[in-house]
């Protein structure tokens, strides 16, 4: 008499690791990132002029704008990989989308912390409700919601599918954040590039521009590095789960 339900469900054949590429890539990325960040720090604090009205606090600008640009890029990557996932249904695309969204969320959080710090000194308040700031906050909430969908219970492919859908829907806010200061009249948040409704793009000194661009690239390469590591880590976790399942079944039989 079988008194016990058997439990000999085989595990899947462990998928070949995706990192057939040489492990040199992350090291190179790390190198580039470190160099760029050091340069950016140098440029920010030594090379670029100190802004006349705001003083040293303005240095936060490079980090602020760089984080925002990185966050936008990250969400765009999520957007692209979400579409790819829906079409191709490969787990790797989902991993990329989710890791990228997570990093994007971190950078948005950075924008949302550096912003108020700057605002405290520039506008003498932590926060005002104006389009750029509001839409940025909305952006943060959207990707928080994305994370909540990920937290849902259920098998991974269901979550991946729903997240991909939401990743596509949610991305629409990114252009809105970008254009917020250009469409609406803003009393507070400055525009540097392009023209807004009520004000002209201010433009900045050349040496500031150089520092800004380098900062942006530094943060972007940091993002790439983090993405690479994050995806690696996720893959590892998936693999460990598979091993664990297999091990447990070996023990049981």
């Amino acid at each position, binding site marked *: *008499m*079988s*008194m*016990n*339900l*058997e*439990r000999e469900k085989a595990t899947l054949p462990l998928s070949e690791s995706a990192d057939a590429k040489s492990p040199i890539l992350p090291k190179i990325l790390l190198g580039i990132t470190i160099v760029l960040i050091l340069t950016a720090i140098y440029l920010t604090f030594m090379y670029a002029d100190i802004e006349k009205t705001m003083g040293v606090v303005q240095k936060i600008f490079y980090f602020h704008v760089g984080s925002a640009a990185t966050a936008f890029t990250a969400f765009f990557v999520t957007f692209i990989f979400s579409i790819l996932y829906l079409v191709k249904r490969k787990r790797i695309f989902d991993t990329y989308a989710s890791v990228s969204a997570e990093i994007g969320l971190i950078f948005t959080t950075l924008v949302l912390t550096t912003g108020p710090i700057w605002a405290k000194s520039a506008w003498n308040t932590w926060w005002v409700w104006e389009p750029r700031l509001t839409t940025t906050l909305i952006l943060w909430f959207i990707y928080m919601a994305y994370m909540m969908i990920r937290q849902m*219970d259920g098998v991974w492919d269901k979550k991946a599918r729903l997240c991909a859908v939401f990743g596509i829907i949610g991305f629409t806010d990114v252009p809105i954040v970008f254009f917020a200061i250009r469409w609406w009249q803003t009393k507070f948040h400055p525009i540097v590039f392009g023209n807004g409704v009520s004000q002209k793009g201010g433009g900045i000194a050349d040496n500031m521009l150089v520092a800004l661009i380098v900062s942006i690239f530094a943060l972007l390469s940091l993002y790439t590095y983090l993405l690479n590591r994050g995806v690696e880590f996720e893959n590892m976790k998936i693999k460990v789960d598979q091993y664990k399942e297999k091990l447990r079944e070996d023990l*049981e039989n």
Partner: protein
Amino acid sequence: MIEIKKLTKQADNKLILRGIDLSIEKGETVAILGPNGAGKSTLLKVLATLIKPSSGLVKINGLDLKKNHLEIKKLFGYLPHSSLLYDHYSPLENLVFFGKLYGVTNAEERAIELVKEVGLSFFLNEPVKNFSRGMIQRIAIARSIVHEPELLLLDEPHTGLDQGAISILNNVILSMKAKGTTTLMVTHDFKQAAEICDRIIIIKNGKLVDDFKLEDRALNLVSEKYQLQVEGVS
């Protein structure tokens, strides 16, 4: 053990139970048969204090159902159609929780033992929500006997169980019977009824139409009487 007098239950204007008189001795194993919609589950729910009778008297172990709620609730184990399990909890967590609720002293051990008994020890720590129908039914059975009740109220306990689990369940009922437990079991499966029960009750249209003792697992007798009462008349 159970004493039912003139029990009626009406929902809105419909009489579901129409005057049931029944008395069951300690240690009996009683099967309740009857066609769909006869009122079998309703009767069990009344005994499990989940439905208030409209009129009539119900005494369990000499305690009045209306007054001695708490004492009675400790006495019985109830297995309804739904599993009464928390979906996101594992079998172990579920059983430990219910064990503690009933004041079982060594809840953890008892839970592990029960899960083993119903043959799911491999699934001890997996959330119940992914289980198949039969696996859920097994845990639900374990839940209903976690506090070693003196009275078992089982509503179609064999649903969804495979052959192995059916014999496990029958063994459990029989071994509890040996310890003096009384069992009331609603079922449509004459074979199982004949196998473990020593008394059969047939309910039809909210009334008790037959009540007889059974010996030697006389499956034929059951079918015969059922046919006579339920199909012969209609």
